[in-house]
């Protein structure tokens, strides 16, 4: 009875110290999950989730026209490669590469550039912001 009691205490102590060590790690992981970490402040899309954007890019199959790092099978040749897109100055060669403009562009490019080949796409506003957030992580 006494033995098991002391064992219990020892185990609890070890578990506690582990938790202390893990706290900063868990916080880091938490940051990594919303993952706009390497993205400069002016390109952060508030409340958007790059991971959800990645899923939306795969579901809409943006890769049929674009090379997109991180998306399986995205090797299109119709539009430009999106590798390093976060560093790109202009979207489609016509509009500044900023969060609000990009979110509008990915959903409805012709509203910004009427002669573009990129059609209106079946994305919600929120999805468009997620997609923009993902594209800004491509550096």
């Amino acid at each position: 009875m006494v033995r098991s009691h002391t064992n219990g205490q020892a185990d609890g102590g070890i578990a506690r110290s582990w938790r202390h060590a893990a706290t900063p790690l868990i916080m880091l992981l938490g940051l990594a999950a919303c993952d706009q970490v390497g993205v400069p402040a002016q390109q952060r899309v508030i409340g958007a989730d790059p991971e959800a954007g990645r899923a939306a890019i795969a579901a809409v199959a943006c890769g049929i026209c674009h090379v997109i790092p991180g998306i399986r099978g995205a090797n299109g040749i119709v539009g430009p490669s999106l590798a390093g897109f976060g560093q790109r100055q202009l979207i489609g060669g016509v509009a500044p590469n900023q969060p609000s403009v990009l979110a509008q562009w990915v959903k409805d490019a012709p509203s910004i550039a009427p002669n573009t080949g990129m059609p209106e796409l079946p994305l919600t506003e929120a999805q468009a912001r997620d997609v923009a957030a993902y594209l800004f992580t491509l550096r």
Partner: protein
Amino acid sequence: MQSALAPGGPHAESVASLSWAMFIGAGLIFFLVMSLTAIASLTDADRARWLSGRAVIIGGGIIFPIVTLSALLVYGLLLSRNLVMAGTPALRIEVVGEQFWWRVHYVDSSGAPHLVTANEIRIPIGMPIEFILKSNDVIHSFWVPSLAGKLDMIPGRVNSYRFAAERPGVYRGQCAEYCGAQHALMAFYLIAMDKTEFDAWYARQSEPAPDPTTTFQARGKALFLENGCGACHTIRGTPAEGKIGPDLSHIGDRVSLAAGTFPNNAGTLAGWISSAQHLKPGNLMPSFGNLQGEELRAIAAYLGGLK
């Protein structure tokens, strides 16, 4: 979802239960044999002597296999009797394999086509459907794993079988016989739906293609015809009457493009038209790199509107 172990109808359920019976049975027998082997090799000879007794040899070596395999045979035959669906099928669908897509005809009992479509098959649930399988070029194989086993499509020969879907859903099918460079991108979707929904779909599909509703779509229609798309594709109710490629009369209503390869939206339609040879090299559709961006969008808008 595409798995013979996730059955969506009686045909596939029989196959799945036979598979499970065999997996589990074979697993148990394997475990038994390995245990006996361990006893024979790890314990000392005197204690394992009973293993070489006449009763064990005859019982385990002759009687057990005969009983087990006979039972399995009877079970298998009973199951395969369930696979043959008697009576008149609710629907006859002729599917013709092409490199690398599926031509789909809903036919009457004489074989005359009533409705032509491609790369997507819709059926009502709970009724036996007859599939009549042909090929126009090389050997393909028709396979919807969640609904039934595969059956080859052989040039110059007609194969047919019947199966049903129990639950509504979207079932993926796949060519299961290597047929050339793009065999891996030769898939389709079989959509099982309630009878009333199916009837509404069938009536809609039997109509000619709808007219463009916007000026942008009308421009797309004109461009479609000017660029010669009608040499290979049919859009019923327009001068486009080509038979080489898939019928596009109601393409906007399908869930996929390029034989189950891409989701169907304005972006994938435009991308496919512009770079079909890059996306699926060796298929018969050329890449239309001659189109302006806006023209490409107009054609995609027209096709997407063909519900």
